[in-house]
């Protein structure tokens, strides 16, 4: 074996490695930086195509990739939404909202949840600020929590609603420490809810951008 044969053998090994690591059929252009001998390429199992066939194949590959991307995004979306219900972060009321979304109101859920983010964020900031004052106005705090309980129930934010409920039970029993102990969990549940719903909406945007549709799921 001469030095040229040895070099060719090394190139074949590199190309073979590349082929083994890739799922879809390769075309000449992807391995030609290594080898420009069609005989050697054939021996690696690389499909030697003429340029027209190659571009048709590339387009087919691109469409297949796009379909795989959409499927993957839809699966991720479904998994995330299912986990939100399973973890008790969302309840059936969220499904009600999704059912109100249609071609006349395509961004309804996003709009309502965004409104909630803004409103709930403000209420929680007011709560924390009021609790930090010297003379705490518990009646005002209870009013804020009542409002937050109502809006969280309206959109199906179950854990937030539940903490608000607990707070009000403590308030009714004049248990100030109990009320105070609810504030941090309430803030935490809101932060968690916001980040997860933002992730869900991001996936929705990605699915639509990739040409797919949002999976409709029953919970």
């Amino acid at each position, binding site marked *: 074996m001469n030095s040229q044969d040895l070099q060719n053998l090394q190139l074949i090994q590199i190309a073979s490695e590349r082929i083994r690591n890739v799922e879809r059929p390769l075309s000449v252009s992807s391995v030609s930086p290594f080898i420009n001998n069609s005989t050697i390429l054939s021996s690696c199992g690389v499909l030697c195509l003429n340029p027209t066939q190659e571009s048709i194949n590339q387009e087919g590959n691109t469409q297949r990739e796009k379909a795989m991307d959409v499927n993957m995004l839809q699966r991720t979306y479904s998994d995330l939404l299912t986990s939100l219900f399973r973890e008790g972060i969302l309840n059936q*009321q969220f499904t*009600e909202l999704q059912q109100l979304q249609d071609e006349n*109101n395509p961004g309804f859920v996003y709009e309502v949840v965004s409104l909630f983010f803004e409103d709930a964020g403000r209420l929680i900031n007011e709560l924390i600020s009021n609790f930090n004052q010297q003379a705490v106005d518990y009646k005002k705090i209870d009013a804020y929590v009542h409002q937050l309980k109502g*809006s969280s129930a309206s959109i199906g934010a179950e854990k937030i609603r539940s903490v608000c409920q607990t707070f009000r039970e403590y308030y009714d029993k004049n248990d100030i420490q109990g009320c105070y102990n609810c504030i941090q969990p309430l803030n935490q549940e809101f932060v968690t809810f916001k980040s997860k719903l933002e992730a869900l909406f991001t996936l929705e945007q990605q699915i639509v951008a990739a040409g797919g549709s949002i999976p409709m799921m029953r919970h």
Partner: protein
Amino acid sequence: MASSQVVKVLIVDDDVVTRRIYRTMLLRFGFEITEAGDGKSAVSQFLIGNEYDLILMDNDMPGMNGVEATRTLRGMGILAKIIAITADANSRGALLDAGADEFLLKPVNFTMLTVILKAFNFLN
């Protein structure tokens, strides 16, 4: 009914998220929607001469609550249908006594609301 053919609805609730949801539900039926953030604002709507066929009335609101607003409106001779919608089941009796025609527990289900609207002949 108010003079035009379109059903005119007044949504009375201090929560902006809740009002937005009701608005979307009712717009599906082609209703005309006005919103008020509390009982006093709701009464003011009628004092300035506006007419409504239907009122969705929350109870627990700052200032004038749903019971007081309902009683005031009935005292003014307002005949619009009033659906009281609240999270507190215990306020049902007070709201119906004040003059509400129907009572729903929050959170409102679109199907439940549709059934009541049909019963009130607001839907064909």
